[in-house]
């Protein structure tokens, strides 16, 4: 899309324009890319892949939400609660504060739920009640 003739500009070109506009002039003129640069690009791609793998692995480890524990990670009720979080809580200050408290407390609650079955049942009941009161998602 972002070729020589179109008006579209890519983020990497913006970075290049800041670094050295002459680089872009040579590129658009069809100058040959050095083998060394091509190799460096490949190394960069590999490093990016490693980085992406790392952050995805870290994200999986941090999935510690009570709803995921109670209903399951991909349950429609969990998804409905996520949507409610993003659409209702995140846009306002109090909502964001509540989300922060939830993030801070959820790992502890989830661990406790895994060990104490009565707490797991209590969480489920409370979440059901909460969803029902606010009409979030469908009850099973």
């Amino acid at each position, binding site marked *: *899309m*972002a070729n*020589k003739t179109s*008006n*579209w*500009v*890519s*983020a*990497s*070109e*913006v*970075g290049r*324009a*800041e*670094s*050295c*506009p*002459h*680089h*872009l*002039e*040579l*590129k*658009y003129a069809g100058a*040959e890319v*050095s083998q060394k*640069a*091509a190799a460096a690009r490949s*190394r*960069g*791609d590999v490093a*990016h*892949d490693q*980085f*992406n793998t790392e*952050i*995805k692995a*870290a994200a999986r480890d*941090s999935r510690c939400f009570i709803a995921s524990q109670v209903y399951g990670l991909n349950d429609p009720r969990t998804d409905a609660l996520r949507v409610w979080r*993003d659409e209702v809580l*995140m846009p306002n200050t109090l909502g964001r504060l509540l*989300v922060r*408290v939830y*993030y*801070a*407390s959820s790992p*502890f*609650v989830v661990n*406790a739920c895994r060990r104490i079955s*009565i*707490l797991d*049942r*209590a*969480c489920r*009941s*409370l979440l*059901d*009640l909460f969803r*029902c*009161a606010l009409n979030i998602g469908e009850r099973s």
Partner: protein
Amino acid sequence: MNLNSFLNANTLDEYSGLAFLLLLAVLAIRYFFRKSTSGNNPVGIDGDLIWVDEGKKTEPFFNRTFEILGKPDAMYLTSSGVSAVEYKSRKSGVLDSDIAQAKCAALAARAEGYKVNEIVVVTRSERKSVALPRSDSDLFKEIRPLVKTIRDIRRGSKGEAKPNGGKCFNCAYRSSCNNRAA
């Protein structure tokens, strides 16, 4: 099912519910007296990973208003909005060009519904975060001179050379450049 009928259904164990509420209150107090456990991911952002670049198979975001495109390396939903991450595998620090690139990618992502309000640029030795203007037009103003430069060069203008030792040494067009420093 409404709230009353749900309560009448007697599904909530009163004692366990009370215990849970007590536990939640204790945790809330604990939260206010203890720093949140942030930074448990490679970029040190306290939030949920909501988007990640999977390489060539991931399409960039397109902002049709400003005709710019790009994709951050990752995006996190934080308590204050969305943080877009730009990762550079080099050992040296963050450059202005990295920040400009990240701003452009963030503006592109905004057009497709991600309310990016912060960029985080990470290299192997440095991490820099920059707060973004609230409005898209204000954000575009910050990269507009660069976008204009690119369009001018495409139309035949000369691109100013900014020679620098390390930069020129690693440049893909080093052999074709008469302005190189190294």
